[in-house]
């Protein structure tokens, strides 16, 4: 099943810049993963065409459907058209006024796809005003609530004391994105879908990683509890697992994780966790390692 990632967020939050950054980052990845990017119709079409071609990818411009009935479904038609075209990842840019969870539902409905996370870009400079706006306040709140992982843009333009206030006001895991410098390995599920993909050691000073390898067979029920309770600084986890119920691929983006039955993977368990570097993150990662040893 093709992982489908939704990128939501209001106008001006930098979705297009993030997409271009992701494509540039993918270009560095081994195996040159093929990605399809579906773009909504309100955005200016500024996606770098060369980058798309490099990934043998495809952009599809989505228009908002008919408002009174549902005779037209552009996103659905695009997903139908992409099926069987062996993309390793589909990225859907939700329109600025969309509720991203609604868009992500397509991954649950359309055969051949699985949800791979809701990313929501947040304009750090303007989000506090946007939340108070009488026309879009509720929408901004909903977009933030529905995100698995928030991407904070324009943080560098915010003065220092407002940064902490902002971080404290946000409910979920939030990654800083400066000028579209994003790492596809962190945001997208596709890059580690093969056992031969290397595990990225360090992403930037924003993150700390934990590698975990073991030959032990883990306990499935305890594993599920462990995943549900992953502490908030962990923004990404991935790798393969052997437990007493089978072999699995783990993918987590933000607060969403999935285990998929896996075949043709090496023995044992090999996981990487990526967490935001904050005071206490080192201790948290040691705690995770300890917990993993007890699974």
């Amino acid at each position, binding site marked *: 099943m093709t992982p489908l990632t939704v990128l939501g967020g209001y106008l001006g939050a930098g979705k297009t810049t993030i997409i271009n950054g992701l494509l540039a980052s993918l270009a560095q990845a081994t195996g040159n993963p093929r990605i399809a990017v579906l773009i909504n119709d309100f955005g200016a079409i500024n996606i770098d065409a060369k980058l798309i071609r490099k990934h043998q990818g495809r952009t599809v411009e989505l228009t908002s459907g*008919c408002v009174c009935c549902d005779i037209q479904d552009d996103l659905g038609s695009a997903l139908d058209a992409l099926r069987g075209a062996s993309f390793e990842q589909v990225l859907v840019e939700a329109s600025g006024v969309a509720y991203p969870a609604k868009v992500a539902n397509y991954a649950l409905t359309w*055969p051949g796809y699985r949800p791979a996370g809701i990313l929501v870009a947040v304009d750090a400079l303007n989000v506090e005003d946007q939340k108070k706006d009488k*026309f879009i306040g509720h929408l901004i709140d909903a977009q933030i609530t529905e995100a698995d992982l928030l991407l904070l843009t324009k943080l560098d333009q915010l003065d220092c004391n407002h940064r902490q206030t902002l971080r404290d006001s946000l409910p979920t895991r939030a990654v800083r994105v400066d000028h579209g410098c994003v790492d596809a390995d962190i945001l997208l599920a596709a890059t580690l879908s093969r056992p031969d993909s290397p595990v990225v050691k360090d992403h930037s000073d924003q993150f700390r990683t934990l590698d975990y390898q073991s030959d032990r067979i883990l306990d499935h029920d305890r594993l599920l509890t462990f995943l549900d309770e992953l502490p908030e600084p962990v923004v990404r986890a991935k790798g393969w697992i052997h437990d007493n119920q089978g072999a699995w691929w783990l993918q987590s983006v933000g607060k969403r994780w999935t285990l998929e039955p896996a075949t043709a993977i090496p023995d044992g368990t090999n996981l990487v966790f990526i967490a935001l570097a904050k005071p206490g993150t080192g201790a948290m990662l040691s705690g995770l390692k300890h917990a993993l040893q007890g699974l």
Partner: protein
Amino acid sequence: MPEPVLTVYPARSVITMNPSLPRAEAVAVRGDRIVEVGTLASMQPWFDAHEHIVDDRFSSNVIVPGFIDPHLHPTMAAVLLPMNFVTATEWKLPWGTVSPSMTPEAFLNRVAEIEAAVENPEEPVFIWGYHQLWHGSMSRPLLNKINATRPIIVWHRSFHELYLNDGALKFLHITEAEVGNRKQIDYPNGHFFEAGLGYAVNRLNPTILAPEKYAEGLERLKQVVHFGGHTTIADMATGLFDFDAEWLMLKQVIERDDTPFRVELVPDAARLRASKGSNEAALAFAKSLPEQNTHRLRFSDHIKLFADGAFFSQLAQLQEPGYIDGHHGEWITPPEKLEEAMRIYWNAGFKIHLHVTGDLGVELGLDLLEKLQWERPRFNHGFTFEHFGFSTPEQVERIAKLGASVSANVYYLYELSDAYARHGIGFERASQMARLSACFANGITTALHSDFTMAPAEPLNNAWVAVNRINSTEQLMGPEERITAEQALAAITINAARVIGRADDIGSLRAGKKADFTVLRDDPLTTDPMHLKDIPIVATVFEGRPFPIERTGR
């Protein structure tokens, strides 16, 4: 060439909607225009100078200006009309009146009747109008009991969900292996909703949007429009599906000698922008469209924009206190993008028609209009609030002060006020949907539309709702907002003409205007208001040519 002969139509009464001469006894017509409204005696100077004939076929009837629906969607109608209607409310259609099916048994019996009447066992049967409030639960097994092999497709009244039987699943190649465990598709019950609806619809589209089906649907729409007594309609979002395909088909089906009405075409700005690449390119294209006008099909300087979500889906954007269950509506267009587009069309002198359903949508429209008025004042700008579901009295005053018009879908009140009072927003606001008396009191140009297929394309039915405010459960809703029969008649004639920018030519009966009439058996201004919707429509006259209306009955 000899001058065309004058034709004089005497009537029991002529209601002109011209305040300077509200009532008359006859209308004299030359070619497609009225030469005089008055009495046979007052017309004598014309008769002395020109040959004339007296056509007294309408002499026992009442002549009113031809009805105008200033907002419907021929394209959507063309998709819906080939389907079979099985509905909880009555629909008068040219090929028979759909009497209400109010219970689960009545619904299934009617579906079975329709199915049994179709000879070819492989032909799919499309049903539209299911609603759980009246028809209980629906499922694949229930439809299979009627016929498991023939494809049966049941659409919800809102068009936002559907049910398929075994035959339909097979016809559309939808298998359990493929969708059995997917969300928003209930495979055992054949139920497709939300994203799942899109899945089924994409499979159905080759059938329901096939050109021959679409042409058949447009032919049916022609009958429906005539049957409702219209002589003018407006397509209030040309290009909703596909601009070129729609325009081509309209030219083929509507621009014909047997079509007794004209269509004002108002392009959908968002769709144009998407296909032309920018608002500026879309504007240039919109400006060029009148060059393509034909006799019956006319583009002008009107444009359609969208604010908040569909009324039937409770996606209207509301101000405090919102919906009872705490959910929020949706914006179709991001407010900033709406402002951008509005400014471009405003500055180009266009008349903007803004789709608004909730009071927060109205608020956004008002804020933007006020801003544009401040930047670049315009008089007689024709800005129109379309649908106008929920509003506040204060907003009505602001609409008046900013010089805007209202084109309302009053049928919301009839069909939805009871359900919305109980399950949506509470009684107070539900009973004040379509705040029409306030609009008239504030001197706002106020029209009524059907948004067909959202409401029946029957102007007299809309007038009946606006005058009586009695809903489908027979409750009186917001009696203070009832309008008079005369106001209602204005809302479906002269005010509708104003809203679409054609008041100089149509909408009332006076010397010089197009000879467009609707001929009624009874007088709508003196009849019992509860009888308004049942007044038989005898004929229409379009540009001087009579087109009788046959009543068939089922």
